[in-house]
Structures are given as structure tokens and as C-alpha cells.
């Protein structure tokens, strides 16, 4: 694959992933990941200290599905949604069909009554399977800039 096709593919993956969450099509969210995947929400300080705990820690496709099943049908919280704003992706080298990539993000939270606030900023650190189409995440680490989370975190970032 030439570099521009790779970049186009990653840019598309990032944009479609953010749209999926922001457009509330979360049932599709687990399928952005391979079966044997890892999705972790942590913060910069914990990540640098090598702490492995995540506010959300999913180590399988099934755990991603459970996140959505529970938020849709079990958990109690006020309706809200996010608007993700992404920075440009930066790509590493491709090794055995896997590319390392990263991008900055900003997530605004819009409550059901219109109350709008900056909810999270951070960086995605990804390993992406680019050996087949569509590209999928093998690992997505969501590294929040701050350790503070307002009220609760139920919709994935």
C-alpha cells in the first residue's frame, strides 16, 4: 500500500470512529476493533507512571459490546452526547500489517438540556491492523490530559 492510501485509510478510520460516537450509533462502535483488542481510557500521569488500570479497561471485543449493552439498557444517567474534534493523525512505520498512529482529540459534552462543556482532551495512541480493509484497531489507548473526570464517563471516547 502506498503512503497516501495508508494515510487516507487512517484519516477515514479516525473520522468515521468519531462520527459513530457523536452520531450515537454506538452499536457499531465495537466493530472498529479486531476481536483480540484492547481499549483503555487512562490519563497522562498514570500512563507515564506505567499504571495499567484504566477508567475503562476492555481486553476483548465482547467487553466493548458489554459497554454498549449496559449503557443502553442497564445504567442510569442523564442523556448526553459528545462532539469530538480531532487533530491530524501522525503515522509510524508499517510492520507486519500493523501501523502505530496517534492523534489529539477534544471532546465536548452536550447535556440533554443543552448545557455544553469541555469534557475531555487527550491523545489517542493506536495500533491499527492495516492488512485488510476496513482498517481496525488492535489497540486504542485514550490518554486523557487530566486525571479529573466530571461526574461520570459512560459514552466511550
Amino acid at each position, binding site marked *: 500500500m502506498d503512503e497516501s492510501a495508508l494515510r487516507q485509510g487512517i484519516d477515514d478510520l479516525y473520522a468515521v470512529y468519531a462520527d459513530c460516537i457523536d452520531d450515537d450509533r454506538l452499536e457499531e462502535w465495537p466493530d472498529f476493533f479486531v476481536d483480540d483488542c484492547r481499549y483503555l*481510557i*487512562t*490519563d497522562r*500521569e*498514570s500512563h507515564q507512571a506505567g*499504571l*495499567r*488500570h*484504566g*477508567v*475503562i*479497561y*476492555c*481486553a*476483548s*471485543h*465482547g*467487553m466493548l*459490546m*458489554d*459497554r454498549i*449493552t*449496559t449503557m443502553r*439498557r*442497564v*445504567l*442510569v*444517567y*442523564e442523556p448526553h452526547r459528545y462532539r469530538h474534534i480531532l487533530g491530524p493523525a501522525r503515522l509510524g512505520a508499517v510492520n507486519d500489517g500493523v501501523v502505530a498512529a496517534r492523534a489529539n482529540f477534544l471532546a465536548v459534552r452536550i447535556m440533554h438540556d443543552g448545557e455544553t462543556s469541555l469534557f475531555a482532551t487527550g491523545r489517542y495512541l493506536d495500533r491499527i491492523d492495516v492488512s485488510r480493509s476496513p482498517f481496525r484497531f488492535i489497540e486504542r489507548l485514550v490518554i486523557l490530559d487530566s*486525571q*479529573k*473526570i*466530571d*461526574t*461520570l*464517563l*459512560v459514552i466511550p471516547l
Partner: protein
Amino acid sequence: MSVADIGFEGVSFPSNALSDVPFRVYTDPEQYRLEQERIFKGPTWNYLCLAGEIPNPGDWVATTLGEVAVIIARGPDGAVNAFVNRCAHRGNLLCLTNKGHGKEITCIYHGWSYDLEGHLTGVAFERGVKRQGGMPPEFRKDEHHLQRLRVAELCGLVFGTFDEDVEDLEAYLGPLVVGGMKRVLNRRFHVIGRSTQVLPNNWKLYAENVKDTYHASILHSFLTTFRINRLSMPGSINIDESGGHHFSQAKLDYAAEDADYKAAQLRADTDLKLADNSVIEAFDEYGDQVSVQILTVFPNMVLQQVRNTIAVRVIRPRAVDKTELDWVHLGFDDDDDAMTERRLRQGNLIGAAGYIALEDGCVGGFVQRALQYNDEGSGVVMMGGHEAESQTFRASEAAIRGFWKKYRALIGA
């Protein structure tokens, strides 16, 4: 100006009944000030940090006790010291970051320096410049040390108090709660994760929430949906004599649950299933079938064992309607890889995104919102009676009444 100076003696309680809690205690800014003086700076032991955060002489961390900025430092002799994070000269904040290491702490403003026991050791230009200025001869450094706190350590947790007269930590907690703490923190542990959940509510709403065994299987429908924790399971509420500290336990027949769960997976009538059970697959690591133990130390600490998740939660009041909840997730030094992975996966149950904890992040805010300019009257805390004594069932608000027993004794209400 202190609250005593302006004659405010706090929100009045309508009766002596512990089950009668006036709503205004959650909304009144003057009550909040009174709590800072009489509770957090009063005769209480407050959780400060883990001893393991300052393992070596010279290590320090900066945190808060109530709203007060404090420093906890390990001195050259290995002893843990705590003092206010406020320069004795002009009141400047001494430590600007949350941790560090050094032989002394120097104020950036005028260069006054202190050793790690809080003694003033250096004053910049104490003798003036070219024999002009400087401190007058009556100035003595040993009269200007940092205000010290008493400290005590239990199970690797460091507590502090501003009060000279409060009983020793273990007497303060009582043998029952000390036993509950020793049960969970029974071997060497380390931090596996941290986060802070910002709660849009008064600190007491969270302090009550963790003592409230009544709500758990109602608000947290994850527990009932996936058949995890029901009030019908054997359990207990254990409350110390002061009322302020407690631990609740729920027991689980681990083998029966596993069989039950597998059977449910096969039945067609339960359409809601977890795709990956590992988030709830627990190991009876204490060998006593207790699957949940929530322990509180009045006023600011929770020690939890929820299955194989172990965490210290620190309640930090920030305003009358704002609280920060620090989560310190722990693992034990003898955990193997499988146990570590188990704790990490079960970590989805707790914290700001936790299946059985995230609702506690919003429910206090809902109460706070409902009380906004509508705080007349009292709440009803009668479940399980009127007393604040230990009970062998959990359909009860006894531990909440215990909170108010201790609170009212301290606040003088």
C-alpha cells in the same frame, strides 16, 4: 472571621432523632464553613496518603485535609511528618506540585526554608544586606515553625489530625473497624491506578451514599440485571460506637453464582447477557466468601473490596455543592499476572465509568439540584429503625444514621 465570631451555630436539626436530617445541611455555605472547623480541623483523623507514596526519607506529597493544603513528608529519621502547606512568613503555598523529594522545602516568595519536620531552618537575608535591614535581634527561627499535624499510620495508610486531644487512631476507629481494615489490607500492596471523579454535590451526600446499603441493588441495576448482589444475600452492617465509621459486608457463594450464571446464559428468558463474563469473574481471595466490603472512616475515607477490586476513595470537599472523589486502585505485591488482569478487568465495575459506581457520580448531583432554593424540611432515614447500631441485615440505613450521630456530636447540633 470564624463562624463562631458571627454567631452562627449551624443548621438546626428538627429533633434528636438520627433519622431526621434537615435538607439545609447540604446547601448552607455557613454550615460548610462550620464543618471545615469542627469536623475536618476538629477531633477527627483524616486520611492523608499511602505510606508507600513517600517510601524514602526526603519524599513528600502535597494534598488537602478538608480544604486545607497540607504536606506529608518522610523525615531523615524515617518518621512521617505532616504540616500545613503554608509558609510561616507571609502565608504563601510552599509546595506547588503534588509530590517531590529533597532535604528541605523552600518558599519561592522570600526564600524561607524548612526541614522535613517543619522547622524553619533558613531566612533569606536574615542578617540584612551590607549590615542594613534584616531581622531584628528578637526574631527567633524556632518560634516560626510550620503548623504541625499529628500523624498515625495503619495498614499502610497515613492519617492526620489538627486536634491535640483526639484519641489515638485505633481507639478512634474502634476494634471492629480496625478489624475490617486489616482484613482487606492484609499484605503488601501497591497502586495500580488513580483517577478523580468530580461530583456536583455536597460531600455529605457521597459520605452517606457509601454507607447506604439500601440503594445498592435499586439504583445500580447492573447488580440485579446480572444477578450479582441482592439484598437477600447474607451480609451485615458493622458500626463503631461513635457511629462515624463502619463496614458493610455481603457474602457470596462463589461456586453457586458461577453455576447460576452459566445456567442463565443457557436460558432464553434472560435476553440481557454479558458477552464477556470476565468483568465479574471473581476469586475468593480472602477465603471467607465476602464479595463486597465497604468500609468508611469518618470523615473522608472509604476502603472498598468489591470482588477483587481494592480501592481507597478519598472524599475531598471543594465547595458546598462540589466534591472531588479520588480513587486509588490497589493491587497486592503477591498478585500473579492472572490476578492483576482480573483486578484490571473488574476495574470496569468501579470508578467514574464503573458499572456499579458511575450512578453514584450523578445521583448526588440530582439531590443537590432538587434542593436548590428548596431546602426546607427533612429527609427520612428510618429504614431499619432509628438507631445507629450494627445489624445482620442490609435493608437498612443504620450506617447513615451513624454518620449523623458522629456529625452532630462534632458540630454541636
